[in-house]
């Protein structure tokens, strides 16, 4: 189908048919299709109504324009993708030297300077490690050092590095139940002490923790964690 000439009825029917099949299998996918279908039906309803200047002013841009723009842009990248496919690719069409050797290299050990590692690799290393740590081992570690004071110190430390953090960022996915509870208690304590504040834009949206205290006040908490003595 030509994307410049959207035959609304046809697409709508196709999408509705797809939804029929998909919604039994995958709610998320069905949701995406539903959104698209709703957009299309909206477009169609606009087409059926007489065009009046007032209405178009109120409703702003033609919804079709947004869809056309999106589809056209998507098509550009799809073409770029096949363009990439045709470019000579390393290890498929073009090859690098693996053979040339010098006899001197193994003699010296490499010194520091830039290391080739990305944030992704770092995060992945931690993720894999946490995934592989056995839950029982984990509980043991946690029980040893778990105190609200420790977690107040940890959170204070993190809050000195930025002014606002998402609530869920404090809870690593790998936290044990005990760790989750202690982290939560620590957050409550910090709020009670008016060191941080809770913010939320709408019900069920992300909860944000904003720094209220100065960096120095938080640092004191972190350094003098023993004073709190919650154990």
């Amino acid at each position, binding site marked *: 189908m*030509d994307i*410049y*000439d959207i035959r609304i009825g046809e697409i709508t029917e196709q999408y509705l048919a797809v939804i029929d099949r998909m919604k039994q299998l995958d709610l*998320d*996918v069905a949701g*995406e299709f539903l959104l*698209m279908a709703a957009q299309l039906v909206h477009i169609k309803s*606009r*087409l059926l109504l007489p*065009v009046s200047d007032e209405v*178009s002013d109120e409703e*702003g*841009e*033609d919804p*079709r*324009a947004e869809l*056309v*723009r*999106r589809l*056209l*842009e*998507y*098509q*550009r*990248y*799809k*073409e*770029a*993708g*096949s*363009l*990439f*496919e045709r*470019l*000579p*690719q*390393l*290890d*498929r*069409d*073009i*090859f*690098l*030297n693996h053979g*040339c050797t*010098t006899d001197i290299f193994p003699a010296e050990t490499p010194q520091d300077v830039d290391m080739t590692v*990305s*944030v*992704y690799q770092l*995060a992945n290393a931690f993720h894999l490690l946490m995934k592989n740590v056995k839950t029982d081992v984990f509980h043991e570690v946690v029980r040893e050092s778990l105190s609200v004071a420790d977690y107040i110190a940890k959170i204070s430390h993190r809050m000195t590095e930025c002014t606002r953090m*998402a609530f869920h960022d404090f809870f690593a996915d790998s936290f044990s139940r005990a760790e989750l509870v202690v982290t939560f208690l620590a957050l409550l304590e910090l709020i009670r002490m008016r060191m941080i504040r809770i913010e939320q*834009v709408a019900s069920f*949206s*992300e909860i*944000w923790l904003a720094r209220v205290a100065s960096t120095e006040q938080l640092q004191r908490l972190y350094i003098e964690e023993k004073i709190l003595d919650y154990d």
Partner: protein
Amino acid sequence: MTELKALVEAFLFVSEAPLSIDKLAELAETDRNEIKSVTAELMAQYNATGHGIRLMEVAGGLQFRTAPHLASGLRRLQKERPAKMSPAALETLAIIAYRQPVTRAEIEYLRGVDSGGVMKTLLERNLLRILGKKDVPGRPLLYGTTRFFLEMFGLKDLNDLPTLKEFTALDPEMVEALPLEPGDQ
């Protein structure tokens, strides 16, 4: 001069990554102009017909690579075929290459489908990198392409990406076929 040319040739031959003019000047302990004239000579020499090796400008530097027309013959040396990139992976890579820095939500908005799996594969192949977080609520991760992406496709830099067809340059007849004008043109 011949000595410098030999040294630069050897540096380029041995280095795992492309070497920039600046880097070569530093390594050879000479100035950039000398390096420029020597590398120009080497390029002219290797890129003449008859050689199976070319000196190419890639990812901000110079690198020896095999000539593209030998691809099918050279594949016989390969023990295993490299994993072929799926159309989904290429398309996602294209969106990220042209629009970086970009969030996953923006990619999925364009593609209309979940792209987490594809992006993970591209990250693992070192074609993508995390650039930081976008300064909007939720702080989503921002993605961009790596230096290896440039090496993989033999691009000098991001400006060397193939030019995209302009989607604003619509066929006038097609524009007329739209009863309602988009507000932005």
